[in-house]
């Protein structure tokens, strides 16, 4: 263990974060979680906090393309990684297909859990575009929603995945090639 890992929690440090393709430098206490730094230092308040102990998934963001609970990670640990938050999904005012699917399927009511589910799905579908509805349900079970009863969230993600596959079948070179 080197000396600087023994810093008292209140001692500030300078860290650099790559969030949504932009580099940010923040002076912050070593003990601050990634979600707190995103929300309160960078003012990217789209990512939410529901439990601070890694169960609800409201704080889910992508770290190097993988869904991660930003309440379980110190901001300092995310240095050097590519972080993506819900704010990155839309292209300007144009919502992404996933965001539109959530709206079309009424996959949100209060919307508090929504950024977490969107990032979870974004990361998962990128990794497994061929996911079945059952697999999607299993993944969705990682996060909590208190309003919707989950069915419409599963349907929204499934519809988005299906539409992407259909579009891909028309334009992508086939996998066997």
């Amino acid at each position: 263990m080197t000396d600087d890992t023994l810093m008292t929690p209140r001692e500030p440090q300078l860290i650099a974060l790559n969030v949504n393709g932009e580099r940010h430098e923040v002076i912050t206490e070593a003990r601050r979680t990634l979600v707190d730094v995103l929300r309160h230092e960078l003012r990217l308040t789209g990512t939410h906090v529901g439990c601070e102990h890694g169960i609800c998934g409201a704080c889910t963001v992508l770290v190097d393309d993988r869904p991660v609970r930003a309440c379980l990670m110190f901001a300092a640990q995310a240095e050097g990684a590519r972080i993506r938050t819900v704010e990155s999904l839309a292209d300007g005012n144009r919502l992404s297909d996933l965001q539109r699917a959530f709206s079309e399927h009424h996959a949100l009511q209060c919307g508090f859990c929504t950024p977490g589910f969107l990032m979870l799905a974004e990361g998962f579908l990128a990794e497994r575009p061929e996911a079945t509805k059952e697999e999607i349900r299993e993944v969705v079970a990682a996060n909590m929603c208190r309003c919707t009863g989950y069915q419409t969230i599963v349907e929204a993600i499934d519809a988005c995945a299906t539409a992407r596959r259909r579009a891909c079948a028309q334009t992508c070179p086939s996998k066997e090639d």
Partner: protein
Amino acid sequence: MTRQERGRPLVGRSVPRREDRRLVSGRGRFVDDIALPGMLHAQFVRSTVAHGEIMSMDLSAVRRVPGVVAAFTADDLAIADITAQLGRPRSQFVPTAMPVLARDKVRYVGEPLAIVVGLDAYAAEDGLEAAHVEYAPLPPVLGEETALADDAVLVHDEAARNTLVDVSLFATDGIDDIFDAAHRVVEVDVTTGRQNALPLETRGAVAHWDDREEQLLLQTCTQVPHQVRTVASRCLRLDERAVRVVVPDMGGGFGQKCVVGREEIAAAAAALRLGRPVKWIEDRKDALSASFLAREQHYRARAAFDTDGRILALDADVVCDMGAYSCYPFTAGIEPLMASAEMPGVYKVPAYRVRGRAITTNKAPTAPYRGVSRPQYVMVVERLFERAARELGLDPVEIRRRNVITDFPYTGVNDITYDPGSYLESLNLCERVVRDEGWYDTRTAAAAEGRHIGIGYACFSERTGYGSSAFAQRKMQVVPGFDISEVRMDTSGAVTVTTGTMSHGQSHETTMAQIVADALGLDIARVRLHQGDTDRVTYGWGTFASRSITVGGSAVRLAAERLGDKLRAIAAALWDTEPEQVELAGGHVRRRGGDGAHDVLTHQEIAEVAYLRADLLPKDIEPGLTATATFDVFNDGTFSNATHGVVVELHQGTGKVEILRYVCVEDCGVAIHPQVVEGQCRGGIAQGIAGALYEEVTYDAVGEPSATSFMDYKVPTAQEIPEVSIHHLETPCAFTATGAKGAGEGGTIGAPAAVLNAVNDALRPTGTELDHTPITPQTVHRALNPEPVP
């Protein structure tokens, strides 16, 4: 929306939700998203003992913690207590004060004692650890038996036997004789676990004094902004106009946020003291253990039946454990009074007797939670019917058929008049769907293989549209019920509408706009809703009891119609015709029968006359375009109804209850937005299943709550909540301006009863019947695997 669709009414269609764009983009604004210059952060020193006298509290070390700005006790802040009242004789109701910060005594683990304010939430939390509090512990009162004992230790000195409410509302003459003479009497002893409504966004507030407005601005997530304003102004001794409550986006509430909490008032007091903005965000640990809970009830009930399975009498004793304090404004009466008044539900019960009690214990206090007592009493009544069916050898659906109300309006033995509903139709349809899908055959086949599949139903109504008269019957000293709306059109012809209700996920921005757009013949994109701001909204009772569309939506509709009348009057004057000759539709103002260009005006053209060319208005029309309307329901409310059908399988090895099928047939009158109604049903059902199978806060012998994190409080996920198929029936409501009945709570009301009945159906071969929720795997396992007799 296509051009053809534009002319059609919006009510009844699932138009795209207006709130979605910002919410899916991360641009919603929830309380914790608010940041103000110089803002400080609060946390609360909370009691670590369930019951005790506070001997001393030393915050000096707290104040020395780096980053801590201040720490205040109750005495430092001198805030008045919150006291909820019922206008009932002392024998029926004992009022108790809830201090904003505990002063002399603590009454539950987690009760706030002092507020610590720091530069950030981390610093405030550091401060908590330096607080030094000494208690003289008292024996905790943690259960019904201890609470009601003759020599019980008292939670509140003024409440003998720890009883806050004790009412015997109904007692039909000669009811005992009916029981004596009945062909069959069945009994149940049902208990339900203490639950947390658990909005995903915890409670929170940001408070500061605005010098320019000379106002305290309290931004907080509440379902009842005007009521929070009243309490805040009284506790802080400010004129009510000197307090403005603003509610940003809200991440759910489910009733937990429809009572006034202590922490937001304390945060406001601290902000006033410090002259700086103070933010408080409840953490999940506090939200789970020390926030408002609900649902811990005990029913001893019996019912008398004749040989045909007709119910002759219902007799119940209800005890609700309300925890340490009576919530404002509903009081500790909320659960027992609801249960007592409405227990007969959808059935023709000729004789009825009930006693309802609220007891106080050393547990976190309770608030209303989606469905309030109805999930419980529906479960009790449905259990009674199931048991009677078994004993009389009748089919469980058939016995219900023989007893549901079919002639409307029907005035029950509980003095409530039910408006028309589809009780029998929903029951029949639900059973048919389950039967047609082959679940009865599946059950038979499974039984032959030694598997345990059960089918259960719940048939119920949901009283919604509680107007002032319904709440007045409850004898609340502040009587909720009406709502006021204002519709205002600007010179561009765009409209702003206000509502006193408060959406926390129910899509008011969309549904209220649908109502207004229809009434004015206006494009929905030109309607915008204002809610949750006591300075912008005249007055309102907020959102609870599924009242938003029934009461709030009716006020919105009436106000919009009034504005429509004015638009028509102006157009008529311009055309020199009668207002009846003017119609508002398809985004235009048209002269009936005319088809020329001069027979059509835009809303903007009329609006310009109303504001910018008032000289053109006839003398009897005032300039400007605003209209206000108030709506109240003057009868006993309106009753949505539903039947839920559930198929479960019990797993022999694990005791797991798996839901194989869930069918819901619901009738909420006119559905403004069917997709939103289905969303409410599904979400409600998920919470009902949570109560039936998973969630419970228990307390150990010293009063420590079991559930302090999501490791201990089992919130169901997408793996536990099944798909739900929903069938709609529509019996329009005659008492509301929209024809709608409320749809917010039905799912939660029906699910526990239907699941419990299905589990008991599956357990039938074992001879065991379960009467407690949540139904744990342990109890199911025990029932399926009885220990061998030694």
